[in-house]
């Protein structure tokens, strides 16, 4: 136990704490609450109908000015903007123009700067953004929204983004798993029952891609599949397609499917191979001697014995596929993106880290469930590397 402790502590700091931070981020967002405390207190008096009391306007005017001074107004504005689009500009304008206003009534002053301040929706958005501990990132990640009366409803059909994407990720992962099984099963069988020298050579053909850099393999697929690429050139050269009929096989879903199947195929072949190797050839001969056709012998004798390998390989490929990021990002174009790419988008481009964290947390839970299933069915200690 003492020997394991250093690593457990190390992982605790370098891995579990970061995951924990992400989970906290997905429900905790203090920016608005810290910047507009008095405004939010004043809004507690407000029943949500009509406009809030003058006290809320006065507090908001003071705190928006202070946030502008402290340079946090942009962060506050972008959070409010996510709940009601257009509010970013409202905050920026108000912060700028309020400097000229020295006394109330604040409601009229703010309404003069922007009519959004006499729209109750603005105040609902501020109140919602002010929740320190919030479920809104998860609601957002599940394509739901909180209505003004506090009830939760699904987004209208055309505004649903994440559930369809989650669904697409599952389907794509499933398709890749099936492709890997269909391609991997025969070659695992061939390697497992070949003579040792040849088996070693064939196994090397599986291990070379396994060891080759992922970026290299992804680049190769771009080179092969792009419109002016090797495969299209070849098809044109042999006259199968015309020069104007070049296929688009990359920067779309086809690219994602082909490249990911290639990348994940070794993870299917290796467990299959190790299971098949332990099946004595005698079993098939015995089945044949008792009158089974090759198909019957395969179905009733061989296939059932390979099921542990099929399960292990399929689960591993599926687990790796649903969280895949690099390959879809590089060859997926816009139609071949998966849920991980959305996490990256919100981390790097939209900077909506709370939503990125919530999407990441949902993905993490999914992977965790599959990992536990893998442990139950296969056992993590039996995970081997080639």
């Amino acid at each position, binding site marked *: 136990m003492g020997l394991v402790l250093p690593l457990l502590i190390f992982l605790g700091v370098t891995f579990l704490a*970061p995951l924990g931070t992400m989970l906290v981020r997905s429900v905790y967002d203090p920016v608005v609450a810290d910047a507009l405390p008095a405004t939010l207190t004043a809004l507690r008096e407000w029943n949500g109908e009509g406009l809030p009391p003058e006290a809320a306007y006065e507090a908001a005017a003071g705190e928006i000015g202070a946030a502008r001074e402290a340079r946090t107004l942009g962060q506050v504005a972008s959070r409010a903007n996510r709940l009601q689009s257009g509010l970013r500009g409202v905050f920026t304008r108000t912060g700028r123009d309020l400097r000229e206003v020295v006394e109330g009534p604040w409601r009229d002053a703010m309404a003069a700067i922007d009519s959004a301040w006499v729209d109750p929706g603005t105040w609902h958005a501020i109140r919602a953004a002010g929740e320190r501990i919030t479920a809104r990132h998860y609601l957002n990640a599940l394509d739901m929204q909180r209505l003004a009366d506090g009830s939760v409803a699904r987004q209208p059909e055309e505004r649903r983004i994440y559930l369809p994407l989650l669904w697409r990720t599952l389907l794509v992962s499933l398709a890749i798993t099936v492709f890997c099984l269909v391609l991997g099963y025969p070659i695992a069988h061939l390697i497992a029952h070949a003579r040792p020298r040849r088996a070693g050579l064939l196994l090397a053909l599986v291990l070379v891609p396994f060891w080759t850099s992922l970026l290299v393999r992804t680049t190769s697929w*771009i080179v092969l599949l792009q419109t002016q690429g090797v495969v299209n050139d070849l098809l044109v050269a042999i006259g199968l397609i015309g020069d104007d009929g070049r296929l688009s096989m990359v920067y779309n879903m086809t690219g994602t499917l082909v490249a990911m199947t290639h990348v994940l195929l070794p993870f299917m072949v290796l467990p299959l191979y190790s299971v098949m190797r332990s099946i004595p050839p005698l079993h098939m001969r015995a089945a044949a001697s008792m009158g089974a056709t090759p198909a019957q012998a395969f179905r009733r004798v061989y296939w059932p014995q390979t099921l542990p390998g099929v399960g292990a390989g399929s689960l591993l490929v599926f687990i790796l596929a649903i969280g895949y990021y690099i390959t879809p990002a590089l060859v997926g174009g816009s139609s071949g993106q998966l849920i991980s790419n959305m996490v990256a988008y919100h981390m790097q481009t939209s900077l909506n880290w709370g939503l990125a964290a919530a999407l990441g947390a949902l993905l*993490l839970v999914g992977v965790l469930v599959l990992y536990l299933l893998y442990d139950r069915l296969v056992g993590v200690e039996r995970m081997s590397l080639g």
Partner: protein
Amino acid sequence: MIGARVGRIGYLAFCTCVFIFLVAPIIVIVPLSFNAEPYFTFTEGMLRLDPEAWSLRWYREIVENEAWTRGLVNSLVIGVSATLLATVLGTLAALGLSSPAMPARRFITGLLISPMVTPVIIAAAGMFFFYTNLGLAQTHLGLILAHATLGLPFVVITVVATLSAFDRNLTRAAASLGAGPVRTFRTVQLPLIAPGVISGALFAFATSFDEVVVVLFMGGLEQRTIPRQMWAGIREQISPAILAVATFLIVFALALLFTVEWLRRRAS
């Protein structure tokens, strides 16, 4: 009988296609990296084996381009440090996991291997949040710790596998002859599990050497590694120099593969 024959031929043809699918993309890269033109496909000259159409210009470009050489240095510094860290911690943990007195073995093994199955985008996002708080974002140390974490499962898996073939009587014999635990480890256990440890280390190094997502999230300009530079190349200014780097990485992967296979054969 004829049906069986046809089936056999079909099966072998299918397998051949799959092997081509596996290897062709990697092989195609190599000749294309000698393209004299800035294209990603075979020019007519190349197909005619015209020596003018083949050139080393992309190799010259990567050797002379400071971005790539700095990337190589960063990759090596981060990769070697992360590997050392992962190998020491992972080997110790594997020794602990393999001891018969280990409590909650299954749970802890699962925990130690979890960085391997966690989607790297999630790990990278979490590390970005957490390491930024610690001031470790955009530092080499931060990336070393992150890469060591991602490489650890490989060390644990390979060393545990080697230890499962290890005869515990050997350590008992050493102890009965008066060797302390440290001496027993150094003179009896370590030489026997060394191939597993080295394999694990190579896996960990390969992981770090190919890692791009964490670098993307946490690394600054000063921490650009080779994969990060490739990523930028593929996304932004695509040039066949990438194919030259790719060829270098393929040769590197082959070297790693043969070393690991050689070690495996020696161990068994």
